[in-house]
């Protein structure tokens, strides 16, 4: 079988894909080794990728180790999702200049750039779709996000190995790439199965010297992806969410989580979907110019719930409950989907190893008195 939407090529030929993307004007970005973690960076050669490395992740711990194999995509993921490429950590919004009569405003839209992301995981493709929903499909589409998103070409890699922190299967986001990516690869030792997910992806495939895939190759890929799904720890009590979380407002488990949580904001910084940001105005010393910038914020900061002299969420308990309830309950009401993709980064990068799966099941089983579900008629 050989169609223009799937095929195979020798893993050693991945360089052809890079070269083709570069020839089409893309800056190719892929996972690279940096300071003991995998981070996104510009790549030119396949050898820039962490070939022969794997990551070990568990609550509060991230380590890389060499395997001595030629595996290209052995590392599942690093601390960064795709979020920084579309919702920039710092995004200049406006340049405002003082004039004789007042001020003039100049929008600061990012320059259009074609970026090909090679090696995005299915959970991150799902995270990107959630960010699209927030920044592009609401009442006020964000032109900055739109500009960055427009130039993005996403090449996902289906997962054939799950980490102890992974729970994409429970969230329905993996380990097979959902729709929304341009190409999806499955690494089968020395063979790479490639499937197109968009017209741009099909166009690219038509220019690659692909071999036809076979029933046996498809079955093998499915088998490995299914095994990856099977090996994951499930998130318990999913069906009861989000109602059960609203009801658990007074659960004592929140105190327990708060006694461990440092409110360091790590979980929100590594989260593929967290969108909170703050807007800063910085003026030059001569008072003539102001730069308005938005930068990532976190609901764990003291300032997040501040309103004239009082903090709506003064305790870490309030903020942890806010974060978790938002992700797994309020998000459904706001955007019609969960705010979690099951990537497990908040578990790995939590310095004290708080596992959101444990917290949810504990909150749901501890004897928190139902409260938020009460209808006003019965108040």
């Amino acid at each position: 079988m050989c169609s223009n939407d799937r095929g195979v090529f020798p893993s050693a030929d991945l360089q052809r894909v890079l070269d083709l993307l570069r020839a089409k004007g893309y800056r190719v970005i892929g996972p690279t080794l940096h300071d003991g973690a995998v981070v996104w960076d510009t790549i030119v050669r396949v050898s820039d990728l962490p070939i022969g490395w794997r990551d070990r992740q568990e609550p509060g711990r991230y380590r890389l180790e060499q395997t001595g194999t030629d595996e290209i995509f052995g590392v599942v993921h690093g601390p960064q999702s795709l979020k920084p490429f579309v919702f920039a950590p710092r995004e200049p919004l406006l340049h405002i200049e003082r004039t004789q009569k007042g001020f003039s405003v100049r929008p600061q839209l990012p320059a259009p750039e074609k970026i090909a992301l090679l090696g995005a995981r299915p959970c991150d493709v799902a995270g990107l779709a959630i960010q699209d929903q927030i920044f592009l499909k609401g009442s006020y589409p964000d032109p900055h996000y739109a500009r960055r998103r427009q130039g993005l070409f996403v090449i996902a890699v289906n997962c054939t190995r799950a980490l102890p922190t992974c729970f994409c299967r429970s969230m329905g986001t993996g380990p097979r790439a959902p729709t929304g990516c341009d190409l999806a690869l499955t690494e089968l030792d020395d063979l790479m199965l490639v499937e197109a997910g968009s017209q741009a992806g099909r166009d690219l495939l038509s220019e690659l010297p692909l071999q036809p895939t076979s029933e046996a190759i498809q079955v093998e890929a499915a088998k490995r992806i299914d095994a990856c799904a099977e090996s994951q720890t499930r998130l318990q009590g999913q069906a009861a969410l989000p109602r059960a979380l609203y009801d658990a407002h007074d659960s004592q488990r929140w105190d327990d989580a708060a006694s461990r949580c440092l409110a360091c904001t790590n979980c929100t910084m590594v989260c593929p979907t967290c969108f909170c940001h703050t807007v800063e105005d910085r003026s030059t010393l001569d008072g003539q110019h102001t730069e308005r910038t938005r930068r990532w914020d976190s609901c764990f900061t003291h300032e997040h719930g501040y309103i004239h002299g009082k903090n709506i969420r003064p305790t870490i308990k309030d903020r942890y409950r806010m974060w978790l309830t938002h992700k797994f309950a309020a998000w459904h009401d706001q955007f019609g989907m969960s705010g979690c993709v099951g990537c497990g980064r908040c578990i790995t990068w939590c310095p004290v190893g708080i596992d959101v799966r444990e917290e949810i099941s504990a909150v749901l089983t501890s004897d928190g008195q139902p409260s938020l579900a009460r209808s006003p008629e019965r108040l």
Partner: protein
Amino acid sequence: MTNPHIVHAATIVEKVRETADIHTYRLRINDEDERQSYRFAAGQFNMVYLFGVGEVAISIVSDPEDPETLDHTIRAVGRVTTAIARLEVGDGVGIRGPFGRGWPLDEAQGRDVVIVTGGLGCAPVVGAIEYIFRRRDRYGAVKILHGVKTPEDLVFHERFERWERQPDTEVLLTSDRPGKLWRYHVGVVTELFEMVSFDPFRTVVLMCGPEIMMRVGVPILLRRGLPATSVYVSLERHMECGIGLCGHCQMGPYFVCKDGPVMRYDRIAPWLGRPGI
């Protein structure tokens, strides 16, 4: 795609002193095209910007049928509002907006309106009251119940006296603490509920003030047969973007800036006045 981040330059054309630290600023958008295309609904707000200082969410209290100028009543409490208080006629500010959802003044037409306000946070409802009185014949009986902590906290004194003289209108004031010249009720605002009669099936209640007042007060009204869907409350949360993106103003499943600041009581009731929400 229109850019919701852009700040539009405006000029203060009038500044009216309400009290020592509260002023009403009448703003006019500088650019004629922007001014012509600017429309708002009663109860919406603008992000008001002062160059080099910052931005703050302020409700528009003037009439939506006259969007040529926009009135904002601002109390000097924080960094930005204190700086705004130093501005005079002719000075420039910026606005982004209008944002949010306001009072259900269309839906309230033909019905009686009970307005309950507490403390100093009554500015957002002043625009609604003036809106109703400019169209007096379209509404039924109007009852304004207003509570303050001490007699000195009563602002808009002249307005209350003017409203009291309107046809088919009752104004009831109360103070938690008594004062020498206080000739009104002494006690919390919910005590005023006992002093007014209303037909639960043809009344709309608009409420503005501390959340605890709403949490305690609304159930008292509901026990008199008022449907929870006839009560609207105006909420306050930290806002930065005004467009439901920055995340700060969340209250349960809602973004106060986008889904509010005025919300129907039955929707927000489970989250109202609860610590940590």
